[in-house]
């Protein structure tokens, strides 16, 4: 099946097998390895990417359904020439990264959530920030520093 979509600002047209999962399109076809395969069952959030503003699990999404849509992966947030995104900076500042396997998923979830909060003009409570990360697991940090980092995104 032929699909046309945008990924990290770049327009792409590809012929894909109908049952191809989005995570495999991203990692194996487009070679963007920042999106991580964890559980592959929708439990851990390591594979989180943003489609048209919404964070989704790319392990539970058919590649063909990105047709006409815009995907953002961790590689789209910053590069060698552009500075880190605020969510990434805060993660470093607060020491929210240990092995790093969960990090891109945490960042993508936090980015989608903070974009939404900022658009609606609200500053979420700590509990709301925590709730927004309920679909992301981390085996290293114990979460406190990650939540601190996600909350710090709203500081001026």
């Amino acid at each position, binding site marked *: 099946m032929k699909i046309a979509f945008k990924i990290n600002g770049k327009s792409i047209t590809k012929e894909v097998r109908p*049952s191809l*999962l989005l995570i495999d399109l991203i990692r194996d076809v487009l070679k963007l390895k920042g999106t991580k395969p964890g559980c592959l069952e929708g439990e851990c959030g390591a594979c989180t990417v943003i489609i048209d503003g919404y964070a*989704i699990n790319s392990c539970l*999404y*058919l590649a*063909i*359904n990105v047709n006409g849509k815009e995907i953002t992966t961790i590689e789209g947030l910053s590069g060698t020439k552009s500075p880190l995104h605020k969510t990434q900076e805060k993660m470093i500042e607060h020491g929210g990264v240990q092995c790093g396997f969960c990090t891109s998923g945490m960042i993508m979830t936090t980015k989608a*959530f903070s974009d939404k909060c900022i658009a609606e003009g609200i500053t979420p409570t700590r509990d709301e920030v925590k709730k*927004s990360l309920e679909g*992301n697991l981390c085996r290293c940090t114990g979460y406190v520093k990650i939540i601190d980092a996600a909350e710090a995104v709203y500081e001026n």
Partner: protein
Amino acid sequence: MDFDVINVTTTDELCSAIAGNLNNNFRIGAGYTDLILELKQARVQDLTIINIAQLEDPSFNSIIEKGDHIILGALVTASDLVDNKKIKEEYPVLYESALSVASTQIRNSATVGGNICNASPAADMSAALVALQAICNILDSDGRERNEPLVSFIKGVRKTSLVKNEILKSISIPKNSSSHIKSGFEKVGTRKSMEISIVSLSYHIQCSSEGTIEKAGVSCGAVATTIPFASSACNFLIGKNIDAISEIERIGFAKKVLEYAIPISDIRASAWYRKEVLFNISKSIFES
């Protein structure tokens, strides 16, 4: 995991895709949050997926008001419900149940139609919709429509009344007749997030301005093979004052809810525990 996909973007295409595949093994794919997991485990051969994720028909993918009903398209996601102001204000039971579904990422994909058609007794949005006395609007491949109350549409674990040439198009819920409501969704699981209900209780109670209960809808999730509507518990409430329910009446109400619970013991909880929890949460909703 391998299958063929027929992608449909209009309802006409959908109807002909269904009509043309009645002799084949096909499934409908919408949000895929359950279907992909199921297909990975089942390793089915010669399967066709009719993909409705790109269907552009407002009757399938929007929330609209029509006459004395609110109509939710089957492709409306849990996040669409959470973000809808009217749902949040007027149907807290539905808002809370949608918010309790798995995680943000899952809610952004998972559809209300999928939650219903999977026919799990532990499905949170379905449970809330049973309490709201929702009606399923069903379309067949010849374009004919029929309506059926959700409570009877769900026939058992993974069983609905849909026949092979039918698809769930939308769900209608009656508008509130009063603005004085007590409505909510209580769920007990083993942890807060990403959890399948051990027991859930949905309630949507409408009162007169003085607080007299005029209408009540109560359902319980994960305690039977279907999602029962606890009509005798609802009838028990009619005529009582919402702000003056005594301890004895609370117990009476909880006992009536429990009549609908025929739970099983499974890896998440024993039948005994499920009944205890259901009794206690039923009693607690009137303790303020």
